[in-house]
Protein backbone atom coordinates (compact mmCIF):
# COMPACT_ATOMS: atom_id res chain seq x y z
CA UNK A 1 0.00 0.00 0.00
CA UNK A 2 1.11 3.54 -0.75
CA UNK A 3 0.01 6.58 1.20
CA UNK A 4 0.37 10.32 0.90
CA UNK A 5 0.39 12.15 4.23
CA UNK A 6 -1.41 15.51 4.51
CA UNK A 7 -1.42 18.06 7.29
CA UNK A 8 -5.17 18.57 7.03
CA UNK A 9 -8.19 16.46 6.20
CA UNK A 10 -9.32 19.11 3.72
CA UNK A 11 -6.10 18.85 1.72
CA UNK A 12 -6.36 15.07 1.63
CA UNK A 13 -9.99 15.23 0.48
CA UNK A 14 -9.05 17.73 -2.19
CA UNK A 15 -6.62 15.16 -3.64
CA UNK A 16 -9.23 12.40 -3.29
CA UNK A 17 -11.74 14.63 -5.13
CA UNK A 18 -9.25 15.15 -7.94
CA UNK A 19 -8.83 11.40 -8.39
CA UNK A 20 -12.59 10.81 -8.18
CA UNK A 21 -13.16 13.29 -11.01
CA UNK A 22 -10.42 11.64 -13.04
CA UNK A 23 -12.04 8.26 -12.61
CA UNK A 24 -15.43 9.61 -13.70
CA UNK A 25 -17.33 8.69 -10.56
CA UNK A 26 -21.03 9.40 -10.70
CA UNK A 27 -20.92 12.19 -8.11
CA UNK A 28 -18.84 14.29 -10.49
CA UNK A 29 -20.45 13.40 -13.79
CA UNK A 30 -23.98 14.23 -12.81
CA UNK A 31 -22.96 17.02 -10.46
CA UNK A 32 -25.94 16.25 -8.31
CA UNK A 33 -24.16 15.31 -5.12
CA UNK A 34 -25.13 11.65 -5.15
CA UNK A 35 -23.20 8.59 -6.08
CA UNK A 36 -19.63 7.51 -5.61
CA UNK A 37 -17.28 10.46 -5.04
CA UNK A 38 -13.90 9.03 -3.98
CA UNK A 39 -11.75 6.02 -4.64
CA UNK A 40 -10.30 6.19 -1.13
CA UNK A 41 -10.93 8.44 1.86
CA UNK A 42 -8.30 9.81 4.25
CA UNK A 43 -7.72 8.31 7.68
CA UNK A 44 -6.33 10.15 10.67
CA UNK A 45 -2.88 9.14 11.83
CA UNK A 46 -1.62 8.78 15.39
CA UNK A 47 0.14 12.14 15.11
CA UNK A 48 -3.06 13.80 13.80
CA UNK A 49 -2.03 14.00 10.19
CA UNK A 50 -4.16 12.50 7.40
CA UNK A 51 -3.13 9.45 5.37
CA UNK A 52 -4.64 8.92 1.93
CA UNK A 53 -4.30 5.48 0.36
CA UNK A 54 -3.03 6.28 -3.15
CA UNK A 55 -2.03 2.76 -4.14
CA UNK A 56 -4.30 2.87 -7.17
CA UNK A 57 -4.03 6.60 -7.90
CA UNK A 58 -2.43 8.13 -10.97
CA UNK A 59 0.38 10.01 -9.23
CA UNK A 60 2.65 12.68 -10.63
CA UNK A 61 6.41 12.50 -10.09
CA UNK A 62 6.35 14.76 -7.08
CA UNK A 63 3.67 12.66 -5.42
CA UNK A 64 5.43 9.41 -6.26
CA UNK A 65 8.52 10.59 -4.46
CA UNK A 66 6.45 11.56 -1.41
CA UNK A 67 4.61 8.30 -0.80
CA UNK A 68 5.12 6.18 2.28
CA UNK A 69 4.27 2.51 2.60
CA UNK A 70 2.79 2.62 6.08
CA UNK A 71 1.50 4.95 8.76
CA UNK A 72 0.43 4.61 12.37
CA UNK A 73 -3.36 4.91 12.68
CA UNK A 74 -5.19 6.36 15.61
CA UNK A 75 -5.47 3.72 18.35
CA UNK A 76 -8.65 1.62 18.47
CA UNK A 77 -11.21 2.76 20.96
CA UNK A 78 -11.96 -0.69 22.34
Amino acid at each position, binding site marked *: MLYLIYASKEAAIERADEEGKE*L*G*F*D*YWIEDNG*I*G*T*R*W*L*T*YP*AETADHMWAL*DVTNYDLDESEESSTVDHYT*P*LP*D*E*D
Partner: protein
Amino acid sequence: MHVSLDSALGRQRRLNSVGESVLQIAPNAAAAYSLRSLTGGDPKVVRVRREIDNAESDFTAAGISSGALTSFVNDIQTVGTAVNGTGSFDNYTVSNLSNTGFSADNSAGGTGSAGFPYVFKDEDILIVKYTVTNFSSTASLSPQIRGVSATNSVTGKTNSGTAFTANGTYTDVLTATADGTHLMFADGNTGSYTISDFEIVSHSSSGFVETWYDQSGNSKDAVQATAESQPKIVSAGILVTEGGLLFNGDTNFFDIGSSISLGTEFFFTGVLNRNSRVDANGTIIGNDGGGGGNRAFINSSTNTIGIRDGDANIQSSLVPSDSSDSLISYQASASSFTFILNGTTNVKSALTGGQAFRYMGGGSGFNLSVNLKELIVYDTDQTANRTAIEANINSHYSIF
Protein backbone atom coordinates in the same frame (compact mmCIF):
# COMPACT_ATOMS: atom_id res chain seq x y z
CA MET B 1 -55.06 1.95 12.81
CA HIS B 2 -55.14 -1.80 12.66
CA VAL B 3 -54.53 -3.52 16.01
CA SER B 4 -54.18 -7.28 16.01
CA LEU B 5 -56.04 -9.40 18.54
CA ASP B 6 -52.77 -10.57 20.03
CA SER B 7 -51.59 -7.02 20.40
CA ALA B 8 -54.88 -5.92 21.92
CA LEU B 9 -54.62 -8.72 24.42
CA GLY B 10 -51.05 -7.75 25.21
CA ARG B 11 -49.66 -11.01 23.92
CA GLN B 12 -46.84 -11.70 21.60
CA ARG B 13 -47.90 -12.11 17.99
CA ARG B 14 -47.55 -15.71 16.96
CA LEU B 15 -48.24 -15.82 13.25
CA ASN B 16 -48.00 -13.79 10.08
CA SER B 17 -51.09 -13.17 8.05
CA VAL B 18 -50.77 -14.63 4.58
CA GLY B 19 -48.87 -12.24 2.32
CA GLU B 20 -48.04 -9.82 5.11
CA SER B 21 -44.68 -8.06 4.80
CA VAL B 22 -42.33 -7.40 7.71
CA LEU B 23 -43.17 -3.71 7.74
CA GLN B 24 -46.88 -4.53 7.75
CA ILE B 25 -46.37 -6.77 10.77
CA ALA B 26 -44.38 -4.12 12.65
CA PRO B 27 -44.63 -0.88 10.69
CA ASN B 28 -42.66 1.54 12.80
CA ALA B 29 -39.12 0.52 11.88
CA ALA B 30 -36.55 3.24 12.24
CA ALA B 31 -34.63 1.82 9.27
CA ALA B 32 -34.98 -1.27 7.11
CA TYR B 33 -32.62 -2.70 4.49
CA SER B 34 -32.92 -5.72 2.25
CA LEU B 35 -32.63 -6.83 -1.36
CA ARG B 36 -36.25 -8.04 -1.17
CA SER B 37 -39.30 -5.89 -0.66
CA LEU B 38 -40.08 -5.32 3.01
CA THR B 39 -43.10 -3.17 2.21
CA GLY B 40 -45.18 -5.37 -0.04
CA GLY B 41 -44.52 -3.09 -3.03
CA ASP B 42 -41.48 -2.91 -5.30
CA PRO B 43 -39.27 -0.34 -3.61
CA LYS B 44 -35.89 0.91 -4.75
CA VAL B 45 -33.41 -1.23 -2.82
CA VAL B 46 -29.87 -0.50 -4.04
CA ARG B 47 -27.78 1.90 -6.07
CA VAL B 48 -25.00 -0.06 -7.74
CA ARG B 49 -21.68 1.06 -9.21
CA ARG B 50 -20.36 -1.20 -11.88
CA GLU B 51 -16.61 -1.52 -11.68
CA ILE B 52 -15.82 -1.54 -15.36
CA ASP B 53 -16.70 2.12 -16.02
CA ASN B 54 -18.00 3.38 -12.63
CA ALA B 55 -21.50 3.99 -14.04
CA GLU B 56 -24.28 3.78 -11.43
CA SER B 57 -27.93 2.84 -11.44
CA ASP B 58 -30.76 2.27 -8.96
CA PHE B 59 -32.56 -1.06 -8.77
CA THR B 60 -35.80 -2.19 -7.21
CA ALA B 61 -36.28 -5.57 -5.58
CA ALA B 62 -37.80 -6.81 -8.86
CA GLY B 63 -34.80 -5.45 -10.76
CA ILE B 64 -32.58 -7.78 -8.80
CA SER B 65 -34.69 -10.89 -9.19
CA SER B 66 -35.26 -10.20 -12.89
CA GLY B 67 -31.54 -10.05 -13.64
CA ALA B 68 -31.59 -6.36 -14.58
CA LEU B 69 -28.89 -5.62 -12.00
CA THR B 70 -26.47 -8.25 -13.28
CA SER B 71 -27.18 -7.19 -16.88
CA PHE B 72 -26.24 -3.63 -15.94
CA VAL B 73 -23.00 -4.74 -14.28
CA ASN B 74 -22.10 -7.00 -17.22
CA ASP B 75 -22.66 -4.35 -19.86
CA ILE B 76 -20.29 -4.89 -22.80
CA GLN B 77 -18.04 -1.88 -23.25
CA THR B 78 -16.99 -0.23 -26.51
CA VAL B 79 -14.18 -1.93 -28.41
CA GLY B 80 -11.64 0.56 -29.72
CA THR B 81 -10.02 0.67 -33.13
CA ALA B 82 -7.24 -1.89 -33.44
CA VAL B 83 -3.70 -0.77 -32.64
CA ASN B 84 -0.21 -2.09 -33.19
CA GLY B 85 2.01 -3.05 -30.30
CA THR B 86 4.57 -0.49 -29.18
CA GLY B 87 8.04 -0.53 -27.67
CA SER B 88 9.62 -3.97 -28.00
CA PHE B 89 6.44 -5.40 -29.50
CA ASP B 90 5.90 -3.29 -32.60
CA ASN B 91 7.32 -5.83 -35.06
CA TYR B 92 4.01 -6.43 -36.85
CA THR B 93 3.20 -4.49 -39.96
CA VAL B 94 -0.51 -3.86 -39.51
CA SER B 95 -3.20 -2.67 -41.91
CA ASN B 96 -6.98 -2.43 -42.27
CA LEU B 97 -7.37 -1.39 -38.64
CA SER B 98 -10.96 -1.22 -37.41
CA ASN B 99 -12.83 -2.06 -34.23
CA THR B 100 -13.59 -5.57 -35.56
CA GLY B 101 -10.34 -6.53 -37.19
CA PHE B 102 -6.89 -5.92 -38.62
CA SER B 103 -4.24 -7.61 -40.76
CA ALA B 104 -0.84 -8.39 -39.28
CA ASP B 105 2.39 -9.35 -41.01
CA ASN B 106 5.34 -10.51 -38.96
CA SER B 107 7.67 -11.34 -41.83
CA ALA B 108 10.43 -9.34 -40.22
CA GLY B 109 10.45 -11.58 -37.15
CA GLY B 110 10.63 -10.68 -33.47
CA THR B 111 7.64 -10.60 -31.15
CA GLY B 112 4.77 -8.58 -32.52
CA SER B 113 1.39 -7.78 -31.11
CA ALA B 114 -1.78 -6.11 -32.31
CA GLY B 115 -5.27 -5.91 -30.90
CA PHE B 116 -8.05 -3.82 -29.48
CA PRO B 117 -8.35 -1.21 -26.76
CA TYR B 118 -10.79 -2.71 -24.24
CA VAL B 119 -10.86 -2.10 -20.51
CA PHE B 120 -11.30 -4.98 -18.08
CA LYS B 121 -10.87 -5.41 -14.34
CA ASP B 122 -9.34 -8.03 -12.11
CA GLU B 123 -11.55 -11.16 -11.87
CA ASP B 124 -13.62 -10.19 -14.92
CA ILE B 125 -14.46 -12.99 -17.34
CA LEU B 126 -14.55 -12.13 -21.04
CA ILE B 127 -15.76 -14.32 -23.86
CA VAL B 128 -14.33 -13.15 -27.17
CA LYS B 129 -15.02 -14.40 -30.69
CA TYR B 130 -13.07 -13.71 -33.87
CA THR B 131 -12.41 -15.10 -37.31
CA VAL B 132 -8.93 -15.78 -38.68
CA THR B 133 -8.35 -15.65 -42.45
CA ASN B 134 -5.31 -15.36 -44.71
CA PHE B 135 -3.32 -17.40 -42.20
CA SER B 136 0.17 -17.96 -43.56
CA SER B 137 2.96 -19.32 -41.42
CA THR B 138 6.59 -19.02 -42.42
CA ALA B 139 7.87 -20.58 -39.22
CA SER B 140 5.55 -21.89 -36.49
CA LEU B 141 3.24 -18.86 -36.43
CA SER B 142 0.76 -19.38 -33.59
CA PRO B 143 -0.65 -16.11 -32.21
CA GLN B 144 -2.75 -16.00 -29.05
CA ILE B 145 -5.04 -13.35 -27.65
CA ARG B 146 -4.57 -12.14 -24.07
CA GLY B 147 -5.46 -9.14 -21.97
CA VAL B 148 -2.61 -6.74 -21.23
CA SER B 149 -2.23 -3.46 -19.38
CA ALA B 150 -0.25 -1.59 -22.05
CA THR B 151 0.56 -1.91 -25.75
CA ASN B 152 4.27 -2.12 -24.96
CA SER B 153 3.75 -5.29 -22.93
CA VAL B 154 2.68 -8.84 -23.75
CA THR B 155 2.56 -9.89 -20.09
CA GLY B 156 -0.88 -11.41 -19.68
CA LYS B 157 -3.38 -9.85 -17.30
CA THR B 158 -5.68 -12.65 -18.40
CA ASN B 159 -5.01 -16.20 -19.46
CA SER B 160 -4.15 -16.64 -23.15
CA GLY B 161 -6.66 -17.80 -25.74
CA THR B 162 -6.31 -20.38 -28.47
CA ALA B 163 -2.88 -20.56 -30.13
CA PHE B 164 -4.32 -20.61 -33.65
CA THR B 165 -2.39 -22.17 -36.54
CA ALA B 166 -5.08 -22.14 -39.22
CA ASN B 167 -7.99 -20.15 -40.54
CA GLY B 168 -11.23 -20.48 -38.62
CA THR B 169 -13.57 -18.89 -36.12
CA TYR B 170 -12.44 -19.05 -32.51
CA THR B 171 -14.11 -18.41 -29.19
CA ASP B 172 -11.95 -17.88 -26.11
CA VAL B 173 -12.70 -17.38 -22.43
CA LEU B 174 -10.32 -14.89 -20.82
CA THR B 175 -10.26 -14.58 -17.03
CA ALA B 176 -8.55 -11.48 -15.70
CA THR B 177 -5.99 -11.70 -12.92
CA ALA B 178 -5.41 -7.92 -12.87
CA ASP B 179 -6.81 -4.76 -14.42
CA GLY B 180 -6.06 -4.24 -18.11
CA THR B 181 -6.60 -1.95 -21.06
CA HIS B 182 -6.14 -3.97 -24.26
CA LEU B 183 -6.88 -7.36 -25.79
CA MET B 184 -3.83 -8.13 -27.93
CA PHE B 185 -2.84 -10.97 -30.26
CA ALA B 186 0.88 -11.69 -29.97
CA ASP B 187 3.43 -14.11 -31.34
CA GLY B 188 7.19 -14.32 -31.81
CA ASN B 189 7.13 -16.39 -34.99
CA THR B 190 6.93 -15.27 -38.60
CA GLY B 191 3.96 -15.20 -40.92
CA SER B 192 0.78 -13.21 -41.43
CA TYR B 193 -2.95 -13.36 -40.67
CA THR B 194 -6.12 -11.32 -40.69
CA ILE B 195 -8.56 -10.93 -37.78
CA SER B 196 -12.17 -10.08 -38.63
CA ASP B 197 -15.59 -10.09 -36.92
CA PHE B 198 -13.95 -9.56 -33.54
CA GLU B 199 -16.57 -9.22 -30.83
CA ILE B 200 -16.97 -9.35 -27.08
CA VAL B 201 -19.62 -12.03 -26.62
CA SER B 202 -19.95 -11.38 -22.91
CA HIS B 203 -18.19 -9.47 -20.16
CA SER B 204 -18.82 -10.71 -16.63
CA SER B 205 -17.72 -8.05 -14.17
CA SER B 206 -18.23 -6.79 -10.62
CA GLY B 207 -20.70 -4.43 -9.00
CA PHE B 208 -20.62 -2.58 -5.68
CA VAL B 209 -23.36 -1.04 -3.56
CA GLU B 210 -23.16 2.74 -3.23
CA THR B 211 -26.52 3.00 -1.47
CA TRP B 212 -28.60 0.43 0.35
CA TYR B 213 -31.96 2.16 0.41
CA ASP B 214 -34.00 2.40 3.59
CA GLN B 215 -37.45 0.87 3.10
CA SER B 216 -38.86 2.19 6.39
CA GLY B 217 -39.91 5.52 4.92
CA ASN B 218 -37.50 7.41 7.16
CA SER B 219 -34.91 8.14 4.45
CA LYS B 220 -32.10 6.58 6.44
CA ASP B 221 -30.39 5.31 3.32
CA ALA B 222 -27.09 3.56 4.01
CA VAL B 223 -24.51 5.25 1.81
CA GLN B 224 -20.87 4.65 0.97
CA ALA B 225 -19.42 7.31 -1.36
CA THR B 226 -15.90 5.83 -1.25
CA ALA B 227 -15.45 3.13 -3.89
CA GLU B 228 -13.01 1.00 -1.94
CA SER B 229 -15.34 0.91 1.06
CA GLN B 230 -18.42 -0.31 -0.86
CA PRO B 231 -19.67 -3.86 -0.26
CA LYS B 232 -19.76 -6.08 -3.33
CA ILE B 233 -23.03 -7.38 -4.76
CA VAL B 234 -21.93 -8.86 -8.10
CA SER B 235 -18.70 -10.79 -8.63
CA ALA B 236 -17.51 -12.22 -11.95
CA GLY B 237 -20.93 -11.51 -13.42
CA ILE B 238 -23.21 -13.13 -10.85
CA LEU B 239 -24.69 -12.15 -7.50
CA VAL B 240 -22.08 -12.82 -4.81
CA THR B 241 -21.81 -16.35 -3.51
CA GLU B 242 -23.85 -16.67 -0.30
CA GLY B 243 -25.98 -13.75 -1.49
CA GLY B 244 -26.73 -10.34 -0.06
CA LEU B 245 -24.01 -7.72 0.24
CA LEU B 246 -20.47 -8.96 0.80
CA PHE B 247 -18.71 -6.88 3.46
CA ASN B 248 -15.01 -7.66 3.14
CA GLY B 249 -14.01 -7.28 6.79
CA ASP B 250 -11.35 -4.78 5.85
CA THR B 251 -12.67 -1.51 4.43
CA ASN B 252 -16.42 -1.91 3.83
CA PHE B 253 -19.13 -0.09 5.77
CA PHE B 254 -22.13 2.21 5.38
CA ASP B 255 -23.10 5.53 6.94
CA ILE B 256 -26.78 6.40 7.27
CA GLY B 257 -25.97 10.12 7.56
CA SER B 258 -27.20 10.84 11.09
CA SER B 259 -27.66 8.84 14.25
CA ILE B 260 -30.80 7.02 15.29
CA SER B 261 -30.96 7.01 19.07
CA LEU B 262 -31.87 3.52 20.25
CA GLY B 263 -31.41 4.03 24.00
CA THR B 264 -31.91 0.96 26.12
CA GLU B 265 -35.18 -0.25 24.56
CA PHE B 266 -34.90 -1.28 20.94
CA PHE B 267 -34.97 -4.21 18.57
CA PHE B 268 -33.00 -5.06 15.52
CA THR B 269 -32.82 -8.18 13.45
CA GLY B 270 -30.77 -9.25 10.50
CA VAL B 271 -29.81 -12.12 8.22
CA LEU B 272 -26.13 -12.73 7.75
CA ASN B 273 -23.61 -15.36 6.81
CA ARG B 274 -20.37 -14.97 8.72
CA ASN B 275 -17.16 -15.10 6.69
CA SER B 276 -13.49 -15.37 7.58
CA ARG B 277 -12.47 -12.56 9.84
CA VAL B 278 -10.18 -9.70 8.97
CA ASP B 279 -10.82 -6.95 11.51
CA ALA B 280 -11.34 -7.79 15.17
CA ASN B 281 -14.85 -7.62 16.67
CA GLY B 282 -16.49 -6.42 13.45
CA THR B 283 -19.41 -4.10 13.97
CA ILE B 284 -22.93 -4.98 12.86
CA ILE B 285 -24.34 -1.58 13.81
CA GLY B 286 -22.72 1.21 15.77
CA ASN B 287 -22.43 4.94 16.15
CA ASP B 288 -18.74 5.66 15.84
CA GLY B 289 -17.03 6.54 12.56
CA GLY B 290 -14.02 4.61 13.77
CA GLY B 291 -16.20 1.51 13.88
CA GLY B 292 -15.71 0.86 17.59
CA GLY B 293 -17.35 2.10 20.76
CA ASN B 294 -20.74 0.99 22.01
CA ARG B 295 -22.20 -1.23 19.32
CA ALA B 296 -23.49 -4.63 18.25
CA PHE B 297 -20.67 -6.82 17.00
CA ILE B 298 -19.37 -10.30 16.32
CA ASN B 299 -16.59 -11.29 18.68
CA SER B 300 -13.70 -12.42 16.53
CA SER B 301 -12.21 -14.60 19.26
CA THR B 302 -15.33 -16.62 20.01
CA ASN B 303 -17.43 -15.91 16.88
CA THR B 304 -20.32 -15.09 19.20
CA ILE B 305 -22.64 -12.14 18.82
CA GLY B 306 -22.14 -9.46 21.43
CA ILE B 307 -22.91 -5.91 22.36
CA ARG B 308 -20.71 -3.21 23.85
CA ASP B 309 -22.81 -1.18 26.25
CA GLY B 310 -21.60 1.44 28.68
CA ASP B 311 -18.08 0.77 27.36
CA ALA B 312 -18.21 -2.85 28.51
CA ASN B 313 -18.68 -5.91 26.32
CA ILE B 314 -21.66 -8.19 26.95
CA GLN B 315 -21.11 -11.49 25.19
CA SER B 316 -23.67 -14.09 24.19
CA SER B 317 -23.10 -17.81 23.82
CA LEU B 318 -24.59 -17.75 20.31
CA VAL B 319 -22.41 -18.39 17.26
CA PRO B 320 -23.77 -17.50 13.82
CA SER B 321 -22.92 -19.99 11.10
CA ASP B 322 -19.97 -19.43 8.78
CA SER B 323 -21.49 -21.61 6.06
CA SER B 324 -25.17 -20.71 5.94
CA ASP B 325 -27.55 -17.90 6.81
CA SER B 326 -28.24 -16.99 10.42
CA LEU B 327 -31.10 -14.90 11.74
CA ILE B 328 -29.83 -12.77 14.59
CA SER B 329 -31.83 -10.40 16.75
CA TYR B 330 -31.06 -8.04 19.60
CA GLN B 331 -34.10 -7.38 21.80
CA ALA B 332 -33.65 -4.68 24.43
CA SER B 333 -36.53 -4.03 26.79
CA ALA B 334 -36.85 -2.26 30.12
CA SER B 335 -36.57 -5.50 32.03
CA SER B 336 -33.98 -7.47 30.05
CA PHE B 337 -31.72 -7.70 27.06
CA THR B 338 -31.90 -10.77 24.84
CA PHE B 339 -29.67 -12.08 22.07
CA ILE B 340 -31.54 -14.35 19.64
CA LEU B 341 -29.97 -16.66 17.08
CA ASN B 342 -32.30 -18.67 14.84
CA GLY B 343 -34.98 -18.49 17.52
CA THR B 344 -32.71 -19.51 20.40
CA THR B 345 -32.55 -16.89 23.14
CA ASN B 346 -29.76 -15.86 25.49
CA VAL B 347 -31.14 -13.49 28.11
CA LYS B 348 -29.06 -10.89 29.95
CA SER B 349 -29.73 -8.00 32.29
CA ALA B 350 -31.30 -4.88 30.81
CA LEU B 351 -28.92 -2.48 29.13
CA THR B 352 -27.95 0.65 31.01
CA GLY B 353 -25.64 2.52 28.69
CA GLY B 354 -27.78 3.00 25.63
CA GLN B 355 -27.11 2.49 21.93
CA ALA B 356 -27.34 4.47 18.74
CA PHE B 357 -27.15 3.53 15.07
CA ARG B 358 -25.34 5.44 12.36
CA TYR B 359 -22.79 3.03 10.88
CA MET B 360 -23.34 -0.46 9.49
CA GLY B 361 -20.50 -2.96 9.05
CA GLY B 362 -17.90 -0.94 10.98
CA GLY B 363 -16.18 2.31 10.06
CA SER B 364 -12.54 3.15 9.50
CA GLY B 365 -11.93 0.04 11.64
CA PHE B 366 -13.80 -2.91 13.19
CA ASN B 367 -15.06 -3.95 9.78
CA LEU B 368 -17.48 -6.84 9.63
CA SER B 369 -16.78 -9.84 7.42
CA VAL B 370 -20.20 -11.17 6.42
CA ASN B 371 -22.71 -11.54 3.65
CA LEU B 372 -25.47 -9.30 4.98
CA LYS B 373 -28.90 -9.85 3.46
CA GLU B 374 -31.28 -7.93 5.65
CA LEU B 375 -31.21 -5.53 8.58
CA ILE B 376 -34.27 -4.02 10.25
CA VAL B 377 -33.92 -1.62 13.15
CA TYR B 378 -36.59 -0.43 15.58
CA ASP B 379 -35.97 2.26 18.16
CA THR B 380 -38.70 0.74 20.30
CA ASP B 381 -39.19 -2.49 22.21
CA GLN B 382 -40.66 -5.06 19.81
CA THR B 383 -41.13 -7.90 22.27
CA ALA B 384 -44.77 -8.19 21.17
CA ASN B 385 -43.84 -8.52 17.49
CA ARG B 386 -40.51 -10.25 17.64
CA THR B 387 -41.54 -13.81 16.84
CA ALA B 388 -43.85 -12.68 14.04
CA ILE B 389 -41.08 -10.58 12.48
CA GLU B 390 -38.62 -13.45 12.74
CA ALA B 391 -41.19 -15.91 11.35
CA ASN B 392 -41.68 -13.68 8.34
CA ILE B 393 -37.95 -13.42 7.71
CA ASN B 394 -37.43 -17.14 8.24
CA SER B 395 -40.23 -18.00 5.85
CA HIS B 396 -38.40 -16.07 3.16
CA TYR B 397 -34.87 -17.31 3.82
CA SER B 398 -35.69 -20.80 5.24
CA ILE B 399 -32.97 -20.53 7.86
CA PHE B 400 -34.27 -22.76 10.66
